[in-house]
């Protein structure tokens, strides 16, 4: 059995560890608001990590200035998981999978004294983390658009099953940058107000920044006090369009069908991708209905975090794991009235429930889709 352990971390606008984050989400806090960046005259509606929070995080870090923003947050996040689990960074059975879309993309522009510009290359960035942490094994970078984080977790299970390593920390991270904001703006994909996944009045995404890490392990003694089985996961491609989701939800349906086995109890809820673009949410609702999941409670956590790209799959899995063990359905923030044609049940109020498992899904550019099933062990 492979465990998604209770040793995890989230660094986001809502806090520096997963407990701070969960408490904020549970109480309905959303940090998404207008933020003025130095590179633009107009504000963007984003989930930005405040400088005061960064200062709190870095107060115990020596020479914080030699790391990029993403490196600093990633090191803190991974170190938190190492510390909680007691695993030695130098353990030869430990692997690191880093999931990101853009890594240190901010190094492409401007001067960064004391920072090697080659760290814009993802393997160089990952190797820097390895050196700073004292890891033995070379980290593996997965860059598979918005399913990167979830795919990293699915890969961790496969690597442990093929005995490549015994424990894997999956860390997902992306920061807010002019690069991504200008690109999504050119797509007309950005919402000027806090996003409203699955809602009738949704107008697009908010970008967010976060780093999130979790230990996946075959060792039950390292599964933590809230044990969860990572049952299985799958990915699939729509083979339809590089930047538009399939109208039929074929790829997501295929990933779900390979993840949910006939005869097994259906999951207690779905943590959907739910970006709040008109086409994405519509596609997901169709796929969920076609998969027969019409009565299952569904949420999107984008209303709390915005779209955190390569971090999203890890971050949303961590919050869902905590909700599973706290027997809580988390409200799909921003949702008021149903605005998708597929028959699905959105969670409109954070409330207690009886839950033994959940399904996490993700979809992204390049037509990729992912799904994974987690069950209380």
């Amino acid at each position, binding site marked *: 059995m492979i465990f998604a352990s209770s040793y995890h971390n989230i660094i986001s606008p809502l806090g520096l560890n997963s407990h701070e984050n969960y408490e904020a989400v549970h109480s309905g806090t959303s940090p998404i608001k207008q933020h003025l960046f130095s590179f633009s005259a107009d504000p963007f509606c984003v989930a930005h990590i405040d400088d005061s929070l960064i200062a709190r995080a870095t107060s115990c870090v020596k020479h914080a200035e030699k790391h990029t923003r993403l490196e600093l947050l990633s090191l803190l996040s991974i170190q938190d998981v190492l510390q909680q689990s007691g695993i030695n960074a130098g353990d030869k059975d430990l692997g690191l999978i880093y999931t990101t879309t853009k890594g240190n993309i901010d190094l492409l522009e401007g001067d960064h004294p004391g920072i090697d510009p080659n760290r814009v290359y993802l393997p160089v960035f990952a190797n820097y983390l390895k050196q700073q942490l004292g890891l033995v094994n070379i980290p593996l970078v997965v*860059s*598979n658009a918005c399913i990167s984080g979830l*795919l990293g977790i699915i890969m961790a299970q496969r690597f442990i099953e093929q005995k490549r390593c015994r424990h894997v920390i999956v860390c997902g991270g992306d920061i807010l940058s*002019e*690069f991504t904001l200008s*690109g999504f703006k050119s797509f007309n994909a950005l919402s000027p107000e806090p996003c409203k996944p699955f809602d009738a009045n949704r107008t697009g995404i908010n970008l967010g920044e976060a780093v999130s890490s979790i230990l996946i392990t075959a060792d039950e003694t390292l599964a933590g006090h809230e044990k969860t089985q990572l049952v299985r996961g799958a990915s699939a*491609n729509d083979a339809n369009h590089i930047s538009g989701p399939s109208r039929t939800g074929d790829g997501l349906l295929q990933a779900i069908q390979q993840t949910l086995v006939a005869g097994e109890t259906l999951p207690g809820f779905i943590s959907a991708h739910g970006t709040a673009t008109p086409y994405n949410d519509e596609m997901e609702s169709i796929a969920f209905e076609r998969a027969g999941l019409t009565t299952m409670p569904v949420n999107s956590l984008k209303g709390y975090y915005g779209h955190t790209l390569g971090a999203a799959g890890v971050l949303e899995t961590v919050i869902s794991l905590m909700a599973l063990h706290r027997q809580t359905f988390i409200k799909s923030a921003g949702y008021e009235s149903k605005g998708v044609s597929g028959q699905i049940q959105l969670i409109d109020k954070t409330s207690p429930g009886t839950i033994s498992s959940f399904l996490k899904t993700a979809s*992204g*550019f*390049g037509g990729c889709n992912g799904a994974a099933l987690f069950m209380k062990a």
Partner: protein
Amino acid sequence: MDTTITTYTRIRRQGILSNDQLFYEHNGEAATFAGDAYKHLQLSYPKFHKMDLLCKAGLLATETALKDHASFQSLDMSRVAIVLANRASSLETDRQHQRSISDKSNYFPSPAVFVYTLPNIVIGEIAIKYKITGENAFFVCEHFDAALLHDYAETLLKSEHTDAVLAGWTDVDQGLTDTLIYLVERSTDSNKNTNFKPHSFETINQLYTL
């Protein structure tokens, strides 16, 4: 379980080598390589011209590897996976997008460029062209990693959902392309003949050093 590499294409130094045959050699400038190779292949696929070089290289290699590979057509495309890796991710196109936003007096970010600032878009382009809908993975590694590609393909082929893996490396950096695409299938009596190669770490490294 025996597995076999049933077809491959290597693109390097402006040459396309496919299944031990030199398929195309480009004598012009690097910038015209992809377009001239497209003509040589007699491809008719207008979407090709919108793609960045990473996608063009991946598509040219895949097309060359698959066009005379009759058994590919008999595969169930929902059971074909695409597993690719490279070193520079999408940096070549990232730099192009960055140039379009660096100068505020000449600011022109374009969705047609930005969409290619993800490395897995090449998987998407190949998936669309051949209607392949199985598993996806894009790894970013310091060096060509035959062991990673081999082990991940083997893991997928051992699962009940995958019959074949289109795998390889496709890297574009500073205008240079470095691509190897190959198809791995479970061995059968017909594909075990001498033309095919065992799917092993050594074979993959041999193909890459061609």
